[in-house]
């Protein structure tokens, strides 16, 4: 890729450098605004550069995200962002590749690409904005809407069981799986920083409020009078407790599942959070504590393990082939196998 100019000056970048000149057109009050502001502020802090950053998205409200970033961006087609990001990440190891998707885009029409990008451990960061609704098409239930959701397409209530995005990512053995909340800027920044620094695929579910079609879906985790009772903040190496005074604790049952117990009764049975466990079983059990977040729900990093990264392995194979067989020689390739000469 000769001839490309990559500026390496240490000039201090700011949010402005990561903001495009396009007018943001989400509905007033949409949770996407908060996520956008957090990402635009965080990237310069991480040392990212606009010219080396690419946001790839699919279709949906969240997928308009790239237009507002002052970076390279690709607003692709429904569900396919992880596929585009894969081709880009394989061929351009010098770039930071982000995928922005939603619950419909990433879990319904694009579910296949999501799980395969995760199991391959592509070096991309996937942000899944989960608002439990189809917003852009004006209010149909989504694959994360609670069972019984009465929406435009389900006047008698939805009859299909929702997906739990974190469970799904863990099932695909994603190497980095986390959850955060649109308006909790500090928590979201911490989670995104960890995702950025992770080698390989990172998956972050962000609970995002759609104030037009599904307002208050995450009230249990966001309302000032409820959130302290319901947010289970996962911290590496810390016992998992929650409640205004840490009065609830997570303990493991004999069958590996987890449950909530009063902290004072739990004693030393309180689970100590360890996202680096190679087996995703414990992280999965944590993910099953809540489905649609109407009660106590873990947020933070569920899993962060170090595994070989697909695009690095692929490039290693290219290097190994050159080392073993020498640089490709076109004339030698074309003339390989049985050849014969015809003379005039």
């Amino acid at each position, binding site marked *: *890729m*000769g*001839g*490309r*100019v*990559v500026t390496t000056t240490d000039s201090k970048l700011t949010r402005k450098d990561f903001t*495009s000149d*396009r007018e943001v057109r989400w509905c007033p009050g949409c949770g996407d605004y908060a996520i956008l502001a957090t990402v635009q502020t965080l990237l310069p802090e991480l040392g990212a550069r606009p*010219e*080396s*950053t*690419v946001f*790839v998205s699919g*279709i949906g409200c969240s997928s308009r995200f*790239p*237009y507002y970033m*002052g*970076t*390279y*961006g*690709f*607003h*692709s*087609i429904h569900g*396919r962002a*992880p*596929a*585009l990001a*894969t*081709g*880009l*990440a*394989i*061929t*351009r190891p*010098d*770039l930071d590749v982000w995928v922005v998707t939603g619950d419909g885009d990433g879990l319904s029409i694009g579910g*296949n*690409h999501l799980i*395969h990008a995760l199991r391959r451990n592509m070096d991309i960061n996937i942000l899944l904005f989960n608002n439990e609704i189809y917003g852009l098409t004006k209010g149909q239930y989504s694959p994360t809407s609670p069972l019984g959701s009465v929406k435009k397409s389900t006047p008698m209530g939805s009859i299909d069981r929702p997906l739990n995005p974190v469970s799904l990512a863990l099932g695909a053995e994603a190497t980095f799986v986390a959850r955060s909340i649109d308006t909790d800027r500090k928590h979201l920044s911490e989670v995104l920083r960890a995702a950025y620094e992770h080698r390989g695929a990172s998956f972050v579910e962000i609970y995002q409020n759609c104030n037009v079609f599904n307002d208050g879906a995450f009230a249990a985790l966001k309302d000032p009078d409820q959130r302290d009772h319901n947010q289970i903040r996962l911290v590496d190496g810390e016992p998992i407790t929650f409640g205004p005074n840490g009065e609830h604790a997570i303990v493991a049952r004999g069958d590996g599942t987890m449950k909530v117990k009063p902290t004072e009764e739990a004693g030393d049975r309180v689970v100590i959070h360890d996202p680096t466990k190679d087996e995703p079983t414990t992280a999965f059990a944590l993910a099953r504590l809540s489905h649609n977040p109407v009660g106590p729900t873990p947020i933070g990093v569920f899993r962060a393990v170090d595994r070989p990264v697909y695009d690095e392995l*692929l*490039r290693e194979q*290219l290097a190994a*082939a*050159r080392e073993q067989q*020498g*640089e*490709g020689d*076109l*004339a030698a*390739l*074309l*003339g*390989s*196998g*049985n*050849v*014969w*000469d*015809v003379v005039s």
Partner: protein
Amino acid sequence: MSSTVSDDARERTMVQLSSAVVRFAGDSGDGMQLAGDQFTNQTAVAGNDLATLPDFPAEIRAPAGTLAGVSSFQLHFSDQDIHTPGDAPDVLIAMNPAALMKHLAALRSGGTVILNTDAFTKRNLQKAGYETDPREDGTLTDYQVHEVGLTSLTLRALEEHIERGELNKKEAERSKNMLALGLVSWMFSRPIQETVAWLESKFSARPELADANITALRAGWNYGETTEAFVFHYEVKEAKLPPGRYRNITGNQALSYGLVAASVRSGLPLFYGSYPITPASDILHELSALKRFGISTFQAEDEIAAVGSVIGAAFGGALGVTASSGPGIALKAEAMGLAVMTELPMIVVNVQRGGPSTGLPTKTEQSDLFQALYGRNGEAPLPVVAAGSPADCFDAAIEAARIALTYRTPVVLLSDGYLANSAEPWRLPVIEELPDLASVFRFADEQDITDGEFLPYLRDPETLARPWAVPGTPGLEHRVGGIEKEDGTGHISYEPENHHRMTMLRHERMARIADALPPTDVDDPSGEADVLVVGWGSTLGPIRAATRDLRARGRNVARTHIRHLNPLPKDLDDILRSYRRVILPENNVGQLATLLRARTLVDIQSYNRVSGQPFSAGELARTIETLGWGDAS
């Protein structure tokens, strides 16, 4: 099999042939493709021109002995240049009754049949649908029949190997294809050294297997030499091919090499994303073994991911290619529309097979032309290039890359199952004489910033290509996507006049491609033809053979073959209008004919056959004669 006869030193008759067609047929597990491949290599070394036609079932192992399980390989070789794998075989090797049942009808009257008589058991005859034994009931009276115990001869030849415990009886039997190959090699005076060397290399880890196969091969040759049953053997002299170094190449191999050449000649890394599908998978296999060229191959989770990854790679500045067959292309359609909208260079290969739906996975057809031209939502024009012969797949791939890179557009490259698996001699090109693809594009850089602004849809005035601004370039940060773009800025635009303008620009870009195409070549040696045969894709060989045959019989017939299906050459309309009669044979129900009729209003005579097999030259010659002159002489 026109011939001259001369006496052989060993009281055999050596017959000089101008050309011959040999067909190997047997069970899927009998190694017929392998025997055919080796016979092809020997024939190439003997200096003949050749064309091959492998034909195999979609099932990996259909039930043994049944008609469904028959696999065949046909080779046509000649001392002149030839264009097809031949119509009727002169020699049929039938390894079992099912192979005889399926292929006898194709054999020319008086042709030679070599039967593996060991396989003609009651049960096998029943499985093949024979009520009586064709060896005894008169079925074979029109042919010269050689009943040879290929299985028992093989076992006898390998007796010592079995005694030494190097292989068991079942393993030994598997070498019967080599015994058959040895016999046919003797019949046609083919050198077997190449096959010996190939067996030694293939079984280098198991020398006892190499030795067994070589023993069987030589036993077959010696059987021909010593058995009086074979009175004739044949010789086909070297063909007068243009000077140069040659090799045999199949269409899929040539297409893969063309992509590698495009990468080398453009200086761009090749990214190949694909999902396995017959008959395109060989391209993935070929390219995945060429990592030393810096080629990244990605076996995606599905067809959509394959094309999606290619779009991502193209956005990043790689030469992106995906390949599939009709069903897979259908799945890629939406993403191909995205590639049209984002105006990124890439190649989408369709190795066509029989359709619709799953259709005939291992057979050939040309019925995806309309899919290539129109199979997307909206006005989504893209260039379509078709290869005409196995070796031509190399040049067609380079041409597809040239158009993609010059005009920043996805290009569809059409091959088909016949081209993919057939082989022909290919004169190796001189690398330096291949098109220079590095000069047809450049990556955008700071020069492209005007007044502090970068316009990702500001077009080159000549080609209408937009800048290829790859991530990593400071100052050119921009966003692309599937929503309509504002002319110049590339911003989202829903403005009515802009959409009309952009739609017309996307079409105009196709016209600019046509402006730069070379004049259409019309083959008319007499200069007096008033009948024109038009073709595209893999009908090239049969059409060339048929028109040559007609000319030899005094018919003045012209011929042209279309490489660029979109945009069509600008001079084509006038060419078509200048003939009394225009005939267009296609392995579909008249797709190009429909298109050309609409465009030129010429009353084109369409000839269509959709059997999963290429046209036979004889059938085509008769049809052209009838359509062109109203009668067949």
